[in-house]
């Protein structure tokens, strides 16, 4: 893969040279090889996009440098209801990012043990503790009603958003 990338960078000046000569028909285009962009973040011009550690590592590092976001047994071999679990996880993530609006600083980790769901995330300390307790109770109550099982929130808080930033790109 690296080999191909190097080749393309070397080919480019040649293509530009062709273009400058006005010989457009000599340029051959094809589908771009090795172009993967899912789960990755683009570099900005000013290099000021903050990334957490999770965001800084592309998906092929899952299980090596970073871990999974959903911990359940439904994706294992011969396991039951994989699609339902995935949909529920998506719903939980959406609900929490919406309820804790602009407060969630990290990925939302969903851990399922027996019939219990434990949800972990890092929250910014932007609202008062009283509101935070209300939101915790509200989220647990509604989610456990929808999922029909006990839901526990295991949130941690940080004082500032910059505390979770791993690097800027």
């Amino acid at each position: 893969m690296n080999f191909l990338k190097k080749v393309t960078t070397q080919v480019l000046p040649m293509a530009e040279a062709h273009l400058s000569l006005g010989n457009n028909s000599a340029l051959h285009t094809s589908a771009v090889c090795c172009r993967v962009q899912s789960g990755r973040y683009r570099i900005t011009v000013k290099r000021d996009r903050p990334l957490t550690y999770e965001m800084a590592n592309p998906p092929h590092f899952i299980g090596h440098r970073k871990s999974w976001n959903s911990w359940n047994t439904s994706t294992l071999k011969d396991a039951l209801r994989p699609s339902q679990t995935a949909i529920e996880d998506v719903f939980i993530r959406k609900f929490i990012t919406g309820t804790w609006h602009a407060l969630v600083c990290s990925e939302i980790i969903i851990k399922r043990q027996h019939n219990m769901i434990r949800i972990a995330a890092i929250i910014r300390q932007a609202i008062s503790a009283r509101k935070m307790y209300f939101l915790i109770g509200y989220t647990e109550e509604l989610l456990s009603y929808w999922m029909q099982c006990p839901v526990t929130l295991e949130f941690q808080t940080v004082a500032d958003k910059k505390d979770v930033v791993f690097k800027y790109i």
Partner: protein
Amino acid sequence: MLQVLKSLRLTQPTRFASALSSTATNIPSGSADVSAVDSGEPDKLYSKLEIELRGIDPAVLRSYTWFATTAAEHLGIELGKCWSPRKAHHERMTLLKSVHIYKKHRVQYEIRTHFRYMNFHKLTGSTLDTFLEYIERNLPEGVALQAAKTELQQLPAHLQQPPEQV
């Protein structure tokens, strides 16, 4: 078979008693009723408890195996073979990398399932229930556990006596 049963019966009560006394401190509430119930019928005997673990993370499985075997050691349960196959099971999906065309360019996603097996030998019914519940309650997330028990039974009555006429 019968002789095996007899020798087991002889050796069991002492181990059974020691196991119960040590579980009283280890086990949280919920399994206390195991020691409280004293029914007249004799306890069942199991020659083997085989536990199969499946998980996505081999490190978690290793750590959990360590936990379960250490618990078994403390309870005085005889430990059998603990092993895992060297390679995980890979379930692969090959998709087009692009949304629409470009059939030559594919992307592969895979889900790995790691396996791990544990064997415990010569347990009584109550020890097995207590131990199994203890390790089941401490099962980490993302790990599936399957338990297979092998029960020892008396020879059926029609096989104990030789037939009168052949």
